[in-house]
């Protein structure tokens, strides 16, 4: 195996790292979290200018032909900075669906806007009763003339408040949990019949509950084949897992290093607490959890780049399990070793902890992916 990065990949990592260090200090991040939009349009324009928004997309679509390893590099750096700009929702999820299944016209209408930063998207797939089962859908799209009528309810739609368009999964045939009969639709957010309730999430992002009441769609709204939506959304979600998992690896690195530094300076019982063997061993364990997650991150990215299939799915589930367990351990350990300060809003530790904890919940938790891994 070859674990080296190309020159371009090293430059990509360095440029994001520099942005995080110079332009994204923690207090600036906190101001963005408390702002109306929840992220910075200026930063978003910078991302577009630097080509980051186009990285995962083919050159033919206006992108930079980046693969899974490139996405991994970007998300790991974003994780270190605890970036709140909606890269996951726009580029990985909504953009990912278009990349896999969009027609030329659909890509021109939506994807080019994602790449140049002028359009925001969101993937509306989760429903309250479905938990992590992507096929468990009560939202339906029934045929109407040449188009469809969309009705239903989607929960926790990431970037829902800012989205100009939505990628919506709906049942076009079959029973509520059937593996066939799921389709994807591109829906303008301001279409008649859509109502939204927006809210912040505990890990500093924004999401919406969205109700669709007889929303009229023409046939150009169908993304991919009728009834072929489940395989598309499974791949999109798997790429989403690689993205948030990589973000988590970045978060873990910041947390364990910050914990080491803190323990070197905080004195109690006459010496820096980092000199106590028990705490040293806790920090060693945090380091080991991070290393294991990093290794599985490399494996998952390489498998996806070799071609999306059962091997890649298995690698992704393995990565998600590891990140869930390790993220919990490192996050909780960092809070505990920082003592009371780890609980405050002013220190970044608690925010990394919350993000890591939520990443475990996103797209299937440890338990879910352990079962999935075993079944593949």
């Amino acid at each position, binding site marked *: 195996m*070859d674990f080296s990065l190309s020159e371009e990949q090293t430059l990509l990592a360095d440029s994001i790292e520099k942005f995080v260090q110079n332009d994204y200090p923690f207090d600036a991040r906190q101001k963005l979290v408390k702002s109306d939009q929840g992220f910075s349009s200026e930063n978003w324009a910078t991302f577009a200018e630097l080509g980051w928004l186009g990285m995962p997309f083919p050159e033919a679509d206006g992108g930079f032909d980046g693969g899974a390893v490139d996405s991994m590099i970007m998300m790991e750096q974003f994780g270190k900075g605890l970036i709140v700009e909606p890269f996951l929702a726009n580029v990985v999820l909504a953009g990912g669906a278009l990349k896999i299944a969009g027609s030329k016209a659909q890509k021109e209408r939506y994807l080019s806007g994602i790449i140049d930063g002028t359009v925001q998207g969101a993937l509306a797939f989760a429903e309250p009763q479905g938990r992590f089962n992507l096929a468990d859908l009560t939202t339906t799209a029934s045929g109407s003339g040449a188009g469809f009528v969309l009705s239903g309810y989607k929960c926790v739609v990431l970037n829902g408040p800012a989205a100009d368009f939505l990628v919506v999964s709906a049942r076009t045939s079959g029973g509520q949990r059937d593996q066939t009969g799921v389709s994807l639709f591109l829906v303008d957010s301001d279409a008649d019949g859509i109502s939204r309730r927006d809210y912040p999430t505990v890990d500093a992002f924004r999401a919406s509950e969205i109700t669709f009441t007889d929303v009229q769609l023409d046939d150009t709204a169908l993304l991919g084949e009728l009834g072929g939506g489940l395989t598309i959304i499974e791949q999109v979600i798997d790429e989403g897992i690689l993205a948030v998992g990589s973000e988590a690896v970045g978060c873990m690195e910041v947390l364990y290093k910050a914990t080491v530094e803190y323990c*070197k300076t905080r004195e109690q019982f006459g010496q820096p607490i980092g000199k106590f063997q028990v705490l*040293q061993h806790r920090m060693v364990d945090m380091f080991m959890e991070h*290393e294991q997650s990093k290794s599985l991150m490399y494996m998952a990215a*390489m498998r996806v780049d070799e071609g999306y299939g059962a091997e890649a799915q298995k690698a992704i589930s*393995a990565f998600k*399990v590891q990140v869930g367990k390790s993220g919990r351990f490192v996050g909780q350990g960092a809070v505990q070793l920082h003592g009371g300060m780890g609980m405050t809003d002013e220190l970044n530790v608690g925010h990394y902890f919350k993000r890591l904890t939520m990443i475990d919940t996103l797209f299937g938790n440890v338990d879910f992916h*352990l*079962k999935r891994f*075993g079944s593949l």
Partner: protein
Amino acid sequence: MRGDSNPEAAAFADEIRTFIQRHWRNQGLAPQRRASAEFMSALVKQGWSVPDWPVAEGGTGWTHGQRYLFERELALADAPALDFFAANVLGTLLLDAGTSAQRDLHLPLIRENRARWCVHPSIWGAAPLIACDPTGNASEIRFENCAIGCDGAAGAHWLAALVAIEPDQSSLVLIPLDRTEVQAGLPPDRDQIIFDDLVLTAASILGREGAGQMLVEAALARARSLPWARIPRCRSALQRVMVLVADHPDLDQASRGSFKTRLAALEIELLGLDILEQRIAVAAGELSAEAIMVRIKSRELSTEIFTLMIEVLGYYALPDPDPLNLDNEGPIGGRYSQGAIEELFRYVGGLETMTERDQIAALKF
């Protein structure tokens, strides 16, 4: 970053794999000792039994990366590992510090796999043996009417031990077990060595008198820094448990499901660690925090794997297999002669993860 190997590494791995396929049948649950001995003979004939020795002494001249690939292919095939102590600890000590008589006697035996070594716990850090010296004759090392416990005594030809000659000083002594004054590994206690009145001369001491501990510690550190493919070994052990769970006639559905979930969790940990071990395999010989981490995790996970194996075996974990039975037949049949408790004991006993965590802390923090 790519998942496939470079062409030279792939070709080397293929060569090793082809050899293994020709000479080793994967035994599944209970590798038979007879087949293991035959495989070791094939390695000897191929000239691969002591790869880390100088080429002039029978070594292979492989690079660090090739050495890792060799270990990895052996491990993935669940083929017998090279003898860690004889080939890599004792062999190096003999080459560096042995007398010509010692080298002439022992090196061919080790190279040709013709001698079995029993390793006293003092080599791994326990207290040294105390030799008697009632006559005050400093040139003698005497073991008089004493018994010691030593894993692997049954069938062994030699015992390696640190022997205390002065307070705080010990020598590395090579003790023959085929003498009439010695009874090694006889029933009922296969791990006991009884000395009647064994007298050895200073010619049995390897290296400088009194410097035994220092020599052994240096040789162990060097041997441990070799690329041992620890994680693929764990994966093969896990594979045995998976086969056991799949084939076990007495497991009910619920138990089988529960075991499968635990196996999946272990498999995932090993996948990540395998990648980590490959990442560090290219960093030849460096003692890094990551390398120590792999040692810690391989022992911790091996402990979990063999604990799980014992759980799956149920009552069949109880019979104590006959260590000298080459066909694994006693006492209840070859399929269940796992020796799982012995493997578990070995990993739990070697679980010095606190010291190794201290080492990581010193390196990283």
